[in-house]
């Protein structure tokens, strides 16, 4: 019998445990889930708490209730993973050996990473809503708020649920209006990126969303510290933004045991393959949910689609068949925009959010990138879907694992001022494709497995003896060798004579 240990009993860990329990018999695979406590939080619900829409009882359930029979749940902190001996050391002194390990411990807000964030103003004028205690404290702060400067701030990307700060801003605008203090409030959105929206079609569609609501925007803001004497955010380039109430999203980092185990990057995220979620360093370690380095949103919908792909591949390989599925980076997110309206985003690695209808062409019923009441209802309905369909591992009607272009108004070459084409930054393609070629002097990772339909899997899981080579972490700049650039192969007749210089 093989042993699977799943670290983290949150969205991804619970889903994958239940799906694998249903797919493989107890005599074939022993499944153990490890988490520090028995409280499963519906994290998307934190956003609604400060506005009195949800309270704690809407958001917290016991973890074990959502794990199927035949899954062991161990409640303790994780000390570290020892990949060479395939054993997990727990804080209470016990250890768990594994044949396969799933790391699904997500990311958490780290207010201590920014100087001054947890100073005297923490919990008074400085708040966050990415944890239950944080959302509870902010609920009180919003109740006491009588107008002034309300600043919503993102410390650094990536963060989980990357649109949540914008949703908070929209909901705050709506809430302040309802409480007749909007006119007495200066609402500012502060982002480290170069715009509130950075994808071409989304920026165009949502260009007026902030202006219409009289929300000020501060971009390219890299916070250096928070001045508690003057109640100001201070950036590395000397900009200062004063606040009466600061709602910040602290730096998000993976779990500390990831660092102690030598498995993470500078944010304790576990480098993993973009299409198979297999650790780049250890083929028997898999990363699901927010804990890895997938270049798509850290969101429950991504965890859901990735778990589907992973489960399919895991069961196939367990039964000696090739793994045939590759994750495409699919994300599907309802966005609250206030006034009982919402928007819907559907995208993947290769496709930016477009307008259109979802999930069916023409009839929808949901509208992509448009504010509608139905999208808002979809968001509220999702809490029921989460507890009753998603966690138990039941299929969600109409929502495919792989993103579909049906119903989407596909546009190319849309580049509003200040935005770039996302393709340049996205991983190569929805299915594994050629990666940018690597200079010979640069360190290389283990060859990326190609997982395509009708092709034998080359995932190294079957050959655990494959030596794990170091990932890029830790490289210095000293060993870089310059190589002559290769010219574009574009038709010379189409080449523009002068370079395009970005606006900075």
């Amino acid at each position, binding site marked *: 019998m093989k042993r699977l240990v799943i670290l983290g009993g949150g969205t991804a860990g619970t889903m994958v445990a239940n799906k694998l329990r249903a797919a493989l018999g107890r005599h074939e695979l022993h499944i153990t889930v490890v988490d520090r406590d028995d409280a499963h939080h519906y994290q998307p619900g934190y956003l609604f708490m400060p506005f009195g829409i949800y309270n704690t009882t809407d958001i917290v359930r016991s973890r074990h209730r959502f794990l199927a029979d035949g899954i062991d749940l161990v409640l303790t902190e994780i000390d570290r993973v020892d990949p060479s001996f395939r054993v997990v050391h727990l804080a209470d002194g016990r250890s768990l050996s594994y044949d396969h390990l799933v790391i699904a411990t997500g990311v958490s807000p780290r207010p201590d990473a920014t100087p001054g964030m947890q100073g005297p103003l923490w919990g008074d004028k400085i708040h966050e809503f990415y944890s239950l205690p944080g959302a509870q404290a902010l609920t009180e702060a919003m109740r006491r708020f009588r107008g002034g400067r309300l600043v919503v701030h993102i410390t650094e990307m990536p963060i989980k649920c990357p649109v949540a700060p914008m949703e908070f801003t929209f909901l705050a605008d709506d809430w302040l209006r309802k409480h007749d203090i909007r006119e007495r409030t200066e609402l500012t959105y502060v982002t480290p990126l170069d715009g509130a929206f950075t994808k071409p079609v989304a920026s165009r569609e949502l260009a007026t969303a902030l202006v219409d609501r009289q929300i000020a925007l501060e971009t390219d803001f890299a916070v250096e510290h928070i001045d508690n004497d003057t109640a100001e955010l201070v950036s590395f380039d000397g900009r200062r933004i004063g606040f009466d109430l600061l709602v910040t999203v602290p730096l998000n980092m993976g779990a500390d045991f990831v660092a102690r185990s030598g498995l993470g990057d*500078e944010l304790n995220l576990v480098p993993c393959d973009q299409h198979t979620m297999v650790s*780049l360093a250890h083929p028997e370690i898999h990363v699901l949910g927010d804990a890895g380095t997938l270049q798509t949103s850290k969101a429950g919908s991504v965890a859901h689609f990735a778990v589907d792909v992973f489960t399919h591949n895991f069961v196939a390989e367990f039964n000696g068949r090739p793994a045939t599925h590759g994750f495409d980076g699919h994300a599907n997110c309802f966005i609250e925009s206030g006034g009982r309206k919402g928007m819907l985003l559907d995208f993947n690695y290769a496709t930016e959010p477009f307008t259109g209808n979802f999930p069916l062409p023409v009839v929808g019923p949901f509208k992509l990138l448009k504010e509608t009441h139905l999208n808002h209802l979809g968001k509220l309905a999702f809490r029921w879907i989460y507890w009753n369909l998603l966690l138990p591992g039941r299929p969600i009607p109409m929502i495919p694992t792989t993103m579909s272009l049906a119903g989407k108004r596909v546009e190319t070459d849309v580049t509003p001022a200040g935005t770039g084409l996302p393709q340049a930054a996205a991983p190569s393609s929805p299915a594994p494709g050629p990666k940018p070629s690597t200079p010979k002097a640069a360190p290389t990772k283990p060859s990326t497995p190609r997982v395509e339909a009708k092709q034998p899997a080359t995932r190294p899981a079957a050959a655990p003896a494959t030596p794990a080579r170091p990932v890029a972490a830790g490289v210095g700049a000293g060993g870089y060798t310059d190589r002559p650039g290769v010219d574009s192969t574009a038709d010379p007749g189409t080449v523009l004579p002068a*370079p395009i210089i970005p606006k900075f």
Partner: protein
Amino acid sequence: MPTTMISGRPIDVNDEGFLVAYDQWDSKLGAELGRLIGIELTDAHWGPIRFLRMDYPARGETATLRRVSTVGGFAIKDLFALFPGKPAKKMAYIAGLPKPKGCV
């Protein structure tokens, strides 16, 4: 996707002017990209630029300021002095890599 002449060579870029092919870049081109945005590259500039070039292939995404600082060992304050205003974006441009982005 446009192709433009830079440093006497045809180079593929996006509509904003950022390079889209890792292989088309070399240090001569990097120096020219710096000049185009008003930065004369010194040894101090080349350190983080080389780090970005070296870090990208295995990661598939441009290193963040935090990564340039914690893994590459370059102080963020210094990066703001070397690449004024928007160091992450300017370094990405000069190194011929995609700029940092969000999901919408």
